[in-house]
């Protein structure tokens, strides 16, 4: 049934795509012009009314086609390790193959796992083509009201080990009100992006500079349901701005494979926020931020089992060079039986993680036929984490890649992930080559 739905939507969206006169703003890739996610855009500007006014309804989206090959069996599990749970002593998120953070495999070959897992594309160590994401965005912004309604529905075809299955995932669905014309002040309610750090801004494949998320993205880039407030004040004499983005949601900012966002399991919300500073001069852009998260962990039912996180981020753009860096500090207390979007697990253990990344990209604008831009990038990730009573593990990753922008609607990316187990975790072959072809409309 889901496959039928996919076909219908593809046909429908395809027809709409032909009718789109110009690519949407969200399809403009960074780092040339850093995009803001639609729920963090600068504010509402009343549209011109009348016959020439643009339609209040827009349909955008993208298709992310991948090709990936991971070493070994596509997991981070050491084949001769029999300790339990299998996912406590390794970094299961390391062999990522796409922008969603899905990994090549999470097959533990029967060893018990306790729910510290990413989603899997199920290719193991095989080279395989993938349809990472079919994304359909609907946006409705009536000219008569300071309101915008947005939905992002994604179709995720995956091989599960026992057959194919296409998951339909409502990643975002919210309404946003901008009550004051004179202020960058927005209120949103629904399911929306994270407010923690900066990596969530790159969640979508048509926006992300590279292919895969960082090793700490699992803690900061998840969507959740709740309410959000965004406020930004411009300080023109200083060419600066200060912004505040706060939310109260079901699950905070962990990815859905770790904490289910669609219901509060504890009855209490998770608060999160980011205070940001921007310097916008003609020659250099600097953005700095500090983020925090506090509330009950939403993979279990006890309000007293807290999750706490804080982080710092920085972005600098100068002369075509883009530097992004982020540090994240996460602590989770023990709670009751665990439930994630992947299932039920017996124990939610005390957990701690510290990590971050530094990414450097250089974008060379070009006008050679269809070739609009060539970007080379590199990223260094490092993560130190431990479950109570288990050996702390330290892993890092070097990522190098290239991105080619063709026309305004096609992106080709390829990258290599060199994953290393520095301490605690057994050394395992889990490096990844992955690539992504992203069509946007």
């Amino acid at each position: 049934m889901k496959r039928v739905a996919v076909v219908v939507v593809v046909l429908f969206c395809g027809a709409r795509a032909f009718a789109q006169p110009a690519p949407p703003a969200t399809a403009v890739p960074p780092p040339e012009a850093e995009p803001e996610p639609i729920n963090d855009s600068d504010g509402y500007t009343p549209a011109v009314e009348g016959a020439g006014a643009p339609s209040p309804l827009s349909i955008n989206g993208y298709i992310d086609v991948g090709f990936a090959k991971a070493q070994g069996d596509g997991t981070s599990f050491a084949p001769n390790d029999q300790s339990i749970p299998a996912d406590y002593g390794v970094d299961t998120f390391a062999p990522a193959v796409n922008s969603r953070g899905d990994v090549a495999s999470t097959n533990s070959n029967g060893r018990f796992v306790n729910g510290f897992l990413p989603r899997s594309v199920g290719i193991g160590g095989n080279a395989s083509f993938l349809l990472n994401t079919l994304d359909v965005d609907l946006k409705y912004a009536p000219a008569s009201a300071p309101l915008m309604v947005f939905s992002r529905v994604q179709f995720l075809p995956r091989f599960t080990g026992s057959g194919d299955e296409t998951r339909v995932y409502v990643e975002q669905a919210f309404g946003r009100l901008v009550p004051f014309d004179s202020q960058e002040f927005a209120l949103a309610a629904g399911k929306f992006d994270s407010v923690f750090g900066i990596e969530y801004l790159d969640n979508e494949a048509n926006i992300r500079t590279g292919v895969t998320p960082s090793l700490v993205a699992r803690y900061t880039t998840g969507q959740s349901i709740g309410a959000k407030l965004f406020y930004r004040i411009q300080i023109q004499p200083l060419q600066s701005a200060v912004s505040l983005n706060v939310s109260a949601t079901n699950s905070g900012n962990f990815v859905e494979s770790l904490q289910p966002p669609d219901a509060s399991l504890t009855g209490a919300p998770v608060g999160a926020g980011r205070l940001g500073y921007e310097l916008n001069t003609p020659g250099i852009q600097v953005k700095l931020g500090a983020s925090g998260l506090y509330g009950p962990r939403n993979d279990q039912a006890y309000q007293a089992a807290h999750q706490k996180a804080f982080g710092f981020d920085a972005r600098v753009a100068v002369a075509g060079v883009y530097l992004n860096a982020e540090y994240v500090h996460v602590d989770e207390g023990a709670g009751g039986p665990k439930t994630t979007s992947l299932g039920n697990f017996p124990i939610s253990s005390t957990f701690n993680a510290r990590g971050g990344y530094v990414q450097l990209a250089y974008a060379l604008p070009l006008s050679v036929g269809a070739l609009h831009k060539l970007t080379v990038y590199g990223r260094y990730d490092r993560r130190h984490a431990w479950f109570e009573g288990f050996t702390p593990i330290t892993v890092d990753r070097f990522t190098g890649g290239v991105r080619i922008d063709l026309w305004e609607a096609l992106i080709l990316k390829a990258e290599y992930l060199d994953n290393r187990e520095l301490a605690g975790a057994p050394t395992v072959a889990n490096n990844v080559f992955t690539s992504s072809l992203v069509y946007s409309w």
Partner: protein
Amino acid sequence: MGAYPAAVRRYSGVGAACAAVVALGGCSQAAAPPAAKLFTLFDVQALYTGGMLGSDAIAANDGLPGGILLKLILNQPASDGSLTLAARSAWSDNQLVAFLTTEVWVNYPQVWMQPVYVPVTRASAGGPLQFLGGVSQPTPIFSVGPASAFYSPFLQIVYAEVPADTAPGALTSARQILDGGYPLTPSGGRTMALVPDKVALPATVDLPPTVALPTDVSPPATGYLDGAVVSFLDFGPSMFTWDPNTNVLQEAAIYVLTFIGPEGKVLASPSIPTVLGAGPPGSGVALPGGLQRNSAYYRVHTVVMPTTARVFVQPGSTLEMELPDDLVPFTGFAPGASDLQIAKFSGRVALDGACFSDPTQLDPTSTSPNKCIWLGSEAALETNLDLSTEETTAITVTWEVTDLLTPNTDGSVTAVPGPVAPLEPQ
């Protein structure tokens, strides 16, 4: 103390957060499923250090009336902080045995076996395997520590064949073993509980009378965990079995015999020895007396005794004094019973206390139609009781049976240690 005291203590901390989101309608928390909690010897030691007493209980609200007293795991610490494991007695197939308790799991639907690595080497090519360094007692390398919710004393020995020139003490972590690429040979299971420093085996068990408790279990030995030296007690092989596909341990049953008081209150006492169920098939070397070696991993069940059932208790005995007052009406005695009979049947439950009217009826081999039917084995419980009253608790335990307790004609009891096969290098 409940199963989740820390969680309860922290509840007040969310009050402010709740107030801030009243408009969202949050904070009306539904009943949460019970949290899993593991109590190791390290936890019990910490509870003592934190001011709890031996008469305080853990797992008090998890199906076992009264929970498990700390002193039934570790005796109250000595003035120098040293600790001794508490020895207790239970019925196993109508034989009294002595056992130790090293772990208590609460709300664990299952418990897993973990690997422990034992480096071995060959002194010469093709020669026999020996422990690294040529020692008689290896220094095993544990993979999961006692602070983990997944810690387990139930271990699978995994031999790692390392080069002969490997220095003793060079390998101290599971990561080193796995990264070394050594040939690994999984072997049998072995119960090896990590213990804190200053923990000793008990010298006696109080039945009463106090009985000397020799044991084949060696004093704590040393191993490695993540590069650090740890102490452990090796209770030997053949005390558990597991699902080879999942490493999940198979449970045996402990039956705690309970009585219903006048107001419907469920009455139980740790002074009434429990009944050990048979271990899963496949566990077992023989104990002296022909018994199969007991399982060490049990789930606690409670079984309500019929109204006619009575505990055999000599008036004025220490056992009688240990029983709570509301259980005394459920005791009985056979005047004229011999010292041997008193030693043999004290604390044992008879299906119908009327059989105590004549001491000759105490012996189960008696030909009297009114002889006692003792509920000292799983088979006897299954045969004679309506087990619809049985309740499965959320508690599982490691109970290591160490000795067979044999009564003597003079009323004394002799402890016969069960054999503990040493770990061999292959």
